């Protein structure tokens, strides 16, 4: 047995949630003193695997070896004591405490119940100096930059004796300069003998920082490669893969007038940080415009701005030549917009209300469903029965609570409600997330039918297959900006993958040569 070849070895890890396997016989081997990237799309199973390693989840089967010895990691504390530390994507820090107080929290050095804070501060200062982390142990977390907060998190794991550090999407919240610094820090750490597992889906970071890279797709290990010997395309292909495509035949687009025009749109996310940073695009009637991109690059804020759920900072939104920036959702709806929201259970449905009530959620206030402020439940049920039949929603009856329908039928109900209103602009976000193949095909057919009927369709999806199959044009959103516009018939998934990972079209073209 190779006793010291790998510091961490995970063999045939399977983690099942019910019938679904988030990890299916995944292997991961990390050498001491390397930065090992774990690459995969959203939901490929990276987090599940790391949660298994850090003791948050127990694997259904499989074995973890630490320095060649089998170990059982059944709690985060166990992982800690084995020297495995996690630097979380969302920092686990208390704002009102100092860096030192945060770091010692849970393992306070004390003498007779009195915390020896000065000793702790000294130790932390030493650690900070040793790894060039530049953290002031006496500063309050609320007063320091995001980058320093992250370094405080790193210190926390080091203070607790971590030998293997897991970085979960560490660059998601950092500025480009801070990313450079972080990569330097990681290189320093491995120079000092630590090992790092870097979870990411950004190719550029892997190329800059990692020694080797393991790619996971659909919960399975695709392979491990030396980063130096692999191109970005290789990695993108491994990440995205070539899955079965069931292309739905579609006629060439018959373009009509412009239905949606977005000009220099700026939108902030909840914390007031810019999320959409100057986006221009338009959708004509009779076409499907796909917006591709990795989760968290401004898609959610863009849709919310278009549908009135979020205020914009600046820019213009013209729907059928009416200015609709910062208009109320109902005003936008009545302009002729249908919206299939990203999160169907939070935004699309009121799960405790009946299917009939949910199907009337956008039209309940108008005749024939209500008159003079009084609801006509008879009419509401008739309306529901018609939609159930037309859109093939599988349910025992229209009085069933929406929460009791299957995911696919919940989505069908939303599609039915939205498409039935005969809107000119249809905004659909992640329409097939979590659905089975049959439901996906059904929804795709519906969207193409709408396009052929002369509607303008704006499709936001993280799934490349879906974007490629349905769109007439594709724009790629990265970091709140449009990274490029391509046509599905002339682009490749690799090119899209690179654009999604933040390369510009010029760079992409260069690499292709």
């Amino acid at each position, binding site marked *: 047995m190779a006793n010291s070849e790998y510091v961490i070895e995970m063999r045939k890890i399977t983690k099942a949630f019910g019938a679904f396997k988030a990890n299916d016989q995944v292997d991961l081997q990390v050498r001491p003193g390397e930065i090992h990237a774990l690459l995969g799309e959203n939901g490929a*199973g990276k987090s599940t695997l790391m949660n298994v390693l850090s003791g948050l989840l127990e694997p259904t089967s499989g074995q973890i070896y630490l320095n060649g010895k089998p170990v059982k990691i059944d709690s985060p504390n166990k992982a800690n004591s084995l020297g495995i530390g996690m630097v979380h994507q969302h920092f686990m820090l208390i704002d009102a405490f100092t860096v030192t107080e945060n770091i010692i929290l849970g393992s306070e050095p004390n003498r007779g119940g009195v915390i020896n804070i000065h000793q702790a501060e000294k130790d932390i200062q030493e650690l900070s100096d040793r790894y060039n982390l530049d953290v002031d142990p006496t500063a309050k977390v609320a007063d320091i930059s995001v980058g320093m907060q992250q370094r405080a998190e790193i210190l926390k794991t080091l203070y607790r004796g971590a030998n293997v550090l897991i970085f979960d999407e560490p660059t998601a919240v950092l500025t480009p300069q801070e990313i450079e610094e972080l990569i330097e820090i990681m290189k320093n750490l491995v120079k000092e003998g630590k090992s790092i597992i870097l979870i990411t889906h950004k190719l550029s970071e892997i190329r800059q920082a990692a020694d080797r890279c393991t790619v996971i797709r*659909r919960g399975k290990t695709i392979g491990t490669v030396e980063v130096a010997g692999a191109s970005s395309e290789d990695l993108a292909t491994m990440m995205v893969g070539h899955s079965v495509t069931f292309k739905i035949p579609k006629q060439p687009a018959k373009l009509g007038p412009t239905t949606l025009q977005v000009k220099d749109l700026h939108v902030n996310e909840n914390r007031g940080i810019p999320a959409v940073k100057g986006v221009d695009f338009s959708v004509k009637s009779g076409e499907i415009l796909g917006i591709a991109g990795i989760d968290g690059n401004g898609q959610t804020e863009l849709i919310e701005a278009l549908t009135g759920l979020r205020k914009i900072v600046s820019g213009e939104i013209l729907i059928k030549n009416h200015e609709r920036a910062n208009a109320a959702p109902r005003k936008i709806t009545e302009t002729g917009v249908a919206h299939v929201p990203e999160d169907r259970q939070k935004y699309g449905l009121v799960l405790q209300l009946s299917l009939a009530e949910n199907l009337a959620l956008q039209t309940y206030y108008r005749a024939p469903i209500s008159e003079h402020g009084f609801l006509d439940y008879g009419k509401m049920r008739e309306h529901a029965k018609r939609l159930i039949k037309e859109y093939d929603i599988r349910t025992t009856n229209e009085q069933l609570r929406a929460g009791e329908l299957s995911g696919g039928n919940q989505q069908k109900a939303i599609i039915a409600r939205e498409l039935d209103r005969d809107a000119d602009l249809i905004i659909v976000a992640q329409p097939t997330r979590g659905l089975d193949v049959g439901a996906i095909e059904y929804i795709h057919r519906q969207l193409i039918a709408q396009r052929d009927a002369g509607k303008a369709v704006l499709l936001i999806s993280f*799934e490349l*297959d879906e974007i490629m199959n349905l769109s007439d044009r594709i724009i790629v959103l990265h970091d709140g900006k449009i990274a490029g516009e391509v046509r599905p018939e002339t682009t490749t998934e690799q090119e899209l993958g690179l654009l999604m990972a933040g390369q510009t079209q010029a760079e992409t073209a260069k690499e292709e040569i």
Partner: protein
Amino acid sequence: MIKVNSTTRKILIPLFSILAGFLVGAIIMLFYSYNPLQAYGSMIQGSLGSSVSIGETLRQATPLIFTALGFSVANSAGFFNIGLSGQALAGWVASIWVALAFPNLPTFVLLPLAIIAGALAGAIMGAIPGFLRAFFGTSEVIVTIMLNYVALYLSTYLMQDVMPAHFRTSQDATKMISHHATLHVDWLSHMFGDSRVHFGLFLALIALVVVWVIMKKTTLGFEIRSVGLNPFASEYAGMSSKKTIIMSMVISGTLAGLGGVMEGLGTYQNFFIQTASMSIGFDGMAVSLLGGGSSLGILLSALLFSILQIGGLGMQTGAGVPFEIVSIVTASIIFFVGIDYVISKLFKNKDNANKELPKTPIAKEVVTEEKDAQEGGRL
């Protein structure tokens, strides 16, 4: 585990809670050497044993129906209205004030006017926390609790320093209202042995129907329920959650205000200094929760509460049980209703025994993760 359908279940759970409450009360009485059978006997005797006691029980239930309805409307919109006491007090003061200001107007003008004044005062008191929550996101729990104190001391100030002096008989109480403003009707009172039961009882029954219609049959009620169940989806569907929350609090305050009107124009016929927040406010919350927020449930649980309260007096005189024990029985019933989740485990729902969604946060996380994983899984 007993398998029953969902309707039977809805009835069985509160019944079982009540039974358990009485049982605990009996154990406590046995512990202190009181005879529980005799005590419960005199409770029934005291509350339902004679026409006058029935009248008093109905009179006691009248304001409770209003405050409980008020709580249920706000609760449907996801608003926990603890300010029912203050809203009721505002209604009481306003109705008495109007009644004393125009004592000689004919009944068909003065009575509605005084009632509307009380309703309006309650509505304003209710609108304040609704408005604050909708526009500033303040916690309604804190605001309504504090407003209870505002109402309590404001009512004293208004009576002692703002009302014209000739409205008062002393520093502590107003004059009686004229017979043009009273809810008291002779035939009803006579029917129940000259008890204080008054016409407000019928108004309460009407309110039960009206609230049911508003909540179940109007677009406003649909919006209130929808916003309460899922504010995100409601906003997405073009409802204004701000407007809906304020409207629900206006209705809630109106109903609570009417509860106060019942005490003023019905029970007491005047206003006198209050030293603590009105109990009908807090009892109304319990009645609403016990009744499951439905009109029929509220009617029945308001009657139950009144039986406990009026009958409690009977327990004291008839069986020598201190009123504190009665309070314990009432409290244990509320307690058992509060933990109806435990009792509901006894009666498994036959209709969807196997379909129930996971409820714990952990299970939810797993579901989300599973969903995300599937999404990535097909890329």
